[in-house]
């Protein structure tokens, strides 16, 4: 993924429509957006405005009905499912509102999961996992299962899993949505650190103005389009 000076993300004239029976729902309507490398962007907007759909398109979890999604110079909307899965594994870290950890695995094993898609040896995988858990401040909780961790700690494990392959782009879907204010603040601080000190480009969907205030830029979505209040 190339990052020098050029925008990391270019979304051009994207539409996304879903069918529900005979009804056609247009979630994104001709949306265009550019994100520079190293930005920490907050995506805000009311429910149903298309924030999560946009995030899914950026993560290659869904495809646009029309328009292009280019990330790091690559048209990901044109990739096959198989190549898209490989692309995700290499370039994107995903952080979920409800952490999405596998309950039967320890923190260490959960963080190791994306590394199973690489050719790293077991010893190298362990090193990477230890580094990622140390970055999120959970070096002492490696053998704990998700049920033995607080919500904030589980989200830290989720972030460790997202950064363990050292991706350029972190996509966070309401990362503080299930946390109390204190834990939420800690997670936001961690994301800021990752953005400032490690140069991660972060796109965060949130409802919370307090959370968006920690981002370097905020864009608002309404009815599938960027609202006038926040130009791209």
């Amino acid at each position: 993924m190339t990052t020098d000076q050029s925008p990391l993300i270019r979304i051009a004239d994207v539409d996304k429509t879903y069918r529900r029976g005979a009804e056609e729902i247009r979630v994104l309507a001709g949306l265009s957006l550019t994100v520079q490398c190293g930005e920490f962007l907050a995506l805000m907007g009311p429910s149903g405005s298309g924030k999560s759909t946009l995030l899914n398109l950026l993560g290659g979890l869904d495809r646009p009905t029309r328009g292009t999604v280019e990330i790091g110079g690559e048209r990901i909307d044109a990739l096959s499912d198989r190549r898209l899965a490989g692309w995700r594994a290499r370039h994107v870290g995903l952080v979920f509102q409800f952490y999405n950890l596998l309950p039967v695995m320890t923190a260490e094993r959960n963080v190791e999961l994306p590394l199973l898609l690489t050719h790293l040896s077991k010893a190298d995988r362990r090193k990477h996992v230890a580094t990622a858990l140390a970055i999120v401040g959970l070096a002492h909780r490696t053998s704990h299962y998700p049920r033995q961790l607080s919500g904030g700690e589980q989200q830290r494990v989720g972030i460790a899993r997202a950064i363990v392959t050292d991706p350029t782009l972190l996509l966070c879907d309401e990362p503080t949505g299930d946390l109390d204010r204190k834990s939420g603040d800690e997670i936001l601080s961690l994301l800021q650190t990752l953005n400032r000190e490690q140069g991660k480009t972060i796109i965060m969907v949130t409802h919370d103005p307090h959370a968006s205030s920690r981002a370097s830029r905020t864009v608002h979505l309404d009815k599938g389009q960027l609202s006038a209040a926040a130009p791209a």
Partner: protein
Amino acid sequence: MLNWLSQISAITLANLKTLPERRGAAVAAAVGIAGVVTVLVGVLSIAEGFQRVLAVSGSPDVAIVLRSGSDAEMNSGLTHDDTRLIADAPGLARNAANLPLASAELFVVINLPKRSTGTDANVPLRGVSPAAFDVRGNLMMLEGRRFEPGKNEVIVGAGAARQFSGLDVGKTVRVGQTEWVVVGVFAAGGGVAESEIWTDAAVLQPAYHRGDTYQAVYAKLISAEAFHTFTDALTTNPQLSIKAVRQSDFYADQSTQLVGFVKGIGITIAALMAVGALFGALNTMYSSVAARTREIATLRALGFGSSPVVVSVLLESLALALAGGVLGAAGAWLAFDGHTTSTMNWQTFSQVAFAFRVSPALLVQAILWAAMIGVLGGLFPAIRAARIPIAAALRET
């Protein structure tokens, strides 16, 4: 490849570790499959047991000579002269006294009550010549002694003694106007002779008004290869109209009909039950996939491929099925192996005592059935798992 295998192992491990949370459905599916396997093994062990009795009864170096055109002793007939010519044929083994090892025999069927039900069943009563013991070669007295030639005495095969009442040593069996004293019980290597009652042919002939006729000659050959010399000599003799078969082929043919019938029934019942078990496995695996939708979507979102997801669901289903298969096979082995009974041999219209036989090959066959149910039961849920829309499933709670 290694990468692909690590994906499969990670997902499979996660799947299997959640089994305790779905233990109700998992146990139901495994028990359903165990039931199929138990029934399959149980019924087929009847066929195996029957087949084995007839298989161990036949030796390739013993020839059975019947009247030409006869398929069984029941409808065969040989004169005294026939039997003498047969005994003089080349290729026959001889004893220390240089007498040919050929036994001219009569075969009749009598009615005796079964010990288990008290109902009458057909039991073969065989009149044999003195050479019969050496021709069979594997007869051993378990109790009492051999009958004395010329007396109304019988010896009873161990299987017949077990299955029919009134055949204990010292008891008298009344057939028609004649009474026979049981003087011994014998074993015959587990073969079909153990289902028979034996007496002196010379005593049986007048009792059944057979004159000086017989139904078969059992002839011990010098070797298995001598069979052709022996048959060629007999079939080219214009004085004889006979056919000779190897004893091993004779019994193998007899088992074909019943074994085919029992196997047909066994496989039909098991197939019907397998359909039921298949739905059980499908249900379990669909609920497994449903319970793990978000986890599967998360793994897919992280970059895991769809084929490892499919394989891991199939492996989980296979593991459940194999657990059920092993359980059912072990249960069937404990319940059926060695269980003794008797059934009608339609070639002789008489009962053959045999033991159910759960052979290793049968157990392997049963486990393969279980595996097949497992794979089929996991296939559609696995495909569903692979097709989960990732974006929507990630938000499921």
